[in-house]
């Protein structure tokens, strides 16, 4: 049994996380300025999350992704809890990506608020932190 009950819960938690980042006073404007559309293809539960300069979207959409990340929902959970690093996850094939590394790297320094907020969201939605 995975961390998220179902796709709807995963969308709710991760949607709130990313919306928070896009509205963050420092990272938000920079995220929008970077102008990148990132598509997360998640499995167990299955779902698609789009982070665009105009907000977070879910499911099938007609956008063109600059970067696409494929990963299990549990790996996303571990990543935001800082239990796994991006290079290690990529090396172990737990995350695969499409899109130039430079674009992925552009976003990394802006993600700080997500690391702070995710444990709070876990508490709010009753997700395990171990």
């Amino acid at each position, binding site marked *: 049994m995975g961390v998220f009950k179902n796709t709807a819960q995963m969308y709710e938690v991760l949607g709130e996380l990313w919306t928070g980042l896009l509205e963050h006073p420092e990272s938000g404007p920079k995220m929008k300025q970077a102008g990148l559309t990132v598509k997360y293809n998640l499995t167990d539960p299955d779902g698609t999350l789009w982070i665009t300069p105009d907000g977070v979207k879910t499911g099938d959409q007609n956008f063109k992704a600059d970067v696409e990340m494929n990963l299990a929902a549990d790996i996303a959970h571990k990543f935001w809890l800082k239990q796994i690093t991006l290079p*290690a996850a990529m*090396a172990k094939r737990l995350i695969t990506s499409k899109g130039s590394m430079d674009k992925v790297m552009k976003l990394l320094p802006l993600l700080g608020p997500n690391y702070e907020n995710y444990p709070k969201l876990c508490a709010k939605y009753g997700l395990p932190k171990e």
Partner: protein
Amino acid sequence: MEYLELDMNLTDEQIALKKAVHKFAKEVIRPAAIQLDALADPGDVLKKESIYWDVMGQMKKLGYHTVFIPEHFGGMGLSPLELHIFWEEIAWGSAGFAVSLGVDTFPSFFASLIGEDALIKNIVEPFVNDTGCNFIGCWAITEPDHGSDMLVAGTPYFHDPKITGNVRARREGDGWVINGQKSAWVSNGTHATHALLFLNIDQSMGMAGGGIAIIPLDLPGISRGKPLNKLGQRELPQGEIIFDNVRIPGWCMVAEPDTYEAMLDMTLATANACMGAFFTGVARAAFEEALTYSRERVQGGKLLCEHQLVQKKLFEMFMKVETCRAISRKAMVYNLSNTPPRTEYSIASKVYCTQAAFEVAHEAVQLFGGYGVSKEYHIEKLFRDTRSALIEDGSNDVLGLAAAEAILRNYGA
């Protein structure tokens, strides 16, 4: 001499990048490489007054050392296609300088990918801000007893506990202690200030039990060998690095056995993709030498280029250069845009381009006749440079075996 750009989608900035780097390669890199190649003692390449320092220093001032480093860390952050354009031009000027600058970037490029604070502060920032050759990187993997064994993951013996690396790290407190020796083939090993060091941690796993450390090379217990005397790419200083109870802090170890094999594969995919771009540039340089000479030299009352046999040879050289660019651009763009990479395409690029560059240089020497083997002409250097490339960054035979295994595993699966 400008080639026809077949990619009609290059932007004005990309065309400007190509022109600017080509101008620098022509006016600065190539004349210096020819001068350094002629030095009898390879130690003289690194003398204080050597032009090597001047060229590397100029590249640092232009920010060329930061092409792989993302913009938000202060680098040029070139796209995969721009990286290809950049490296082809640099290597057109000199394969040796391309390799020297290429491995210079390795420790910081790796550190920027991992992105941890200590690595950014201690490695990436000082590297990016260096304009005076105070921070020079190298990639130390080959050992006196292990070349192909170390470089290529996925071979049948990679997990054999009887075959392990000589440079080993053991944990001590929060850090690590390193012992062993890297071979004289380490490019920039003679003078690098930092290394991306591939080593062994868990001998019971064979070569797969490796680790990767990014370390300063001024630590107590590190010593160097003499600069290597060799056939080609003589402007590239190479030398061994010896580790005697060298203590490093924990943050320096960026990969341990759990991720080592995959990291090695990703490193090879990047390095081989670069080699493909480099030797597209070198093949083109050799072809252009042949073309120019054939338009000047008269035999049998006609210019060489007016003889049909020569025309056919020129066409074959031209075709190889264009094929090099086609495969090496695609392989670099694909593998720097996808994780995990499809390493067999980087290997195909490296093996094809180095072999083609060697064949083009070989045919060009033939076209020059006796002058082709004289030190007076640049083609003689290009011929030697391309010969080394068939071994550099993996012997083409062994790389081919590794690629074949990946093809059997992936193609149509």
